[in-house]
């Protein structure tokens, strides 16, 4: 039966938008926590920790996000861990985000003048205090624009969950497209929803990038 493209269809796409936002938020927060660890490891004093973190980042930057999701989705059951599509996608995106955020924040940490770290060290501050009170606050400021920029990439990336069959914005558009036979409208509306989320974020990122460029 071919359905009309009515309010029900519009609502189901908008509901998908909510799921997309929730998924992106989970991945961003999870990625943020692990990303901090990756960034600290990448800029640590131990060589091996740096190498491992660099390999971790290279892996995620050198393979397609879709493959990363596939590996988690098909890989977890192999190790006897059975999870829902939601969890699998969230885990996959979290790994992905942690590598990218880790690399962005490493750049921020290393952009903080080395002398500050040494001065803090000379004042007798320990590693935790040095990072928490001196380096990280400045690093966060420096890497704010690229971090917001990455969040746009992450939100767009959540669309790949649709390929696994997880119902978010893209997948609900796909369902609507196949039940109403109006793919142009369904995908157009989905695109507009993504645009409504991503465009403001892109502007914010560009604004802070410009402001930082003017300062330096």
């Amino acid at each position, binding site marked *: 039966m071919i359905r009309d493209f009515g309010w029900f269809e519009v609502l189901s796409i908008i509901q998908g938008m909510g799921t997309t936002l929730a998924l992106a938020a989970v991945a961003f927060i999870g990625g943020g926590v692990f990303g901090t660890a990756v960034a600290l490891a990448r800029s640590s004093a131990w060589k091996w920790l740096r190498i491992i973190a660099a390999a971790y980042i*290279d892996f995620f930057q050198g393979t397609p996000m879709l493959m990363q999701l596939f590996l988690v989705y098909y890989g977890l059951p192999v190790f006897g861990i059975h999870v829902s599509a939601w969890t699998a996608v969230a885990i996959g995106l979290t790994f992905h985000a942690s590598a990218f955020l880790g690399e962005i924040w490493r750049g921020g940490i290393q952009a903080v003048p080395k002398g500050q770290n040494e001065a803090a060290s000379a004042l007798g501050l320990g590693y935790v205090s040095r990072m928490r009170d001196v380096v990280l606050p400045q690093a966060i400021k420096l890497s704010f624009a690229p971090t917001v920029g990455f969040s746009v990439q992450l939100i767009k990336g959540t*669309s790949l969950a649709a390929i696994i069959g997880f119902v978010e914005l893209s997948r609900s558009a796909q369902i609507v*497209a196949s039940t109403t036979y109006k793919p*142009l409208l369904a995908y157009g509306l989905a695109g507009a929803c993504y645009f409504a989320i991503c465009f403001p974020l892109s502007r914010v990122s560009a604004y802070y990038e410009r402001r930082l460029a003017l300062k330096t």
Partner: protein
Amino acid sequence: MTYTFDFGTLLPYWPQLLYACLLTLWLASTAVVCGFIIGIITVLARRSGVKVLRAIALSYIEIIRNTPFLVQVFFIFFGLPTVGISFTPWTAAFIALSLNCGAFSAEIIRGGVDAIPRGQFEAGAALGLTPLQVFRYIILKPALRVIYPALSGQFILALLTTSIVSSISAEELTSTAQLIDSDLFRSFEIYIVVTLLYLVLATIFSTIFKGIDRVFFSYPIK
């Protein structure tokens, strides 16, 4: 763990996988070249005196950059046929990827153009060069040096993005993997191998690009 890994069953599929790698590389490189040309045209449009052209270029860039590639592919492959424009999966993939690369290239090229002092354009104009000549000799060449790293990164990104066109069953590495998967039901092994293939391709090309950068663009700037 009761699952036993078996990579051996994949061996007969090697020729197929290597051929798929070539298809992926072919798709990525043609789309990046095409995207670069689209990018130049877009930058020219953004700098033109005609307001409508500027508005079109700007909306093109913002729409492409703020929507997922998957939706763009679906829009072109499933959406456009309803208004009478239909493509084969491969053509749709090529068009979608080219348009995608075009928007990102335009931003990269614009960054390079902005890096060139304004006085040079004016000097070019004063010497009697046409706007196109100014663009070609005074803007594009020095800008190319500035944007080279970002542009080569664009190729790697396109290479990884091609995996998404498997969703409209355009023939490339990921769709080949899905095909093999439906033969063997050894999803995990296949996707590990294919992921590593992507990693190898990306690593090879980023090494080559770094080499080119060192040889051709390494002399002191300014």
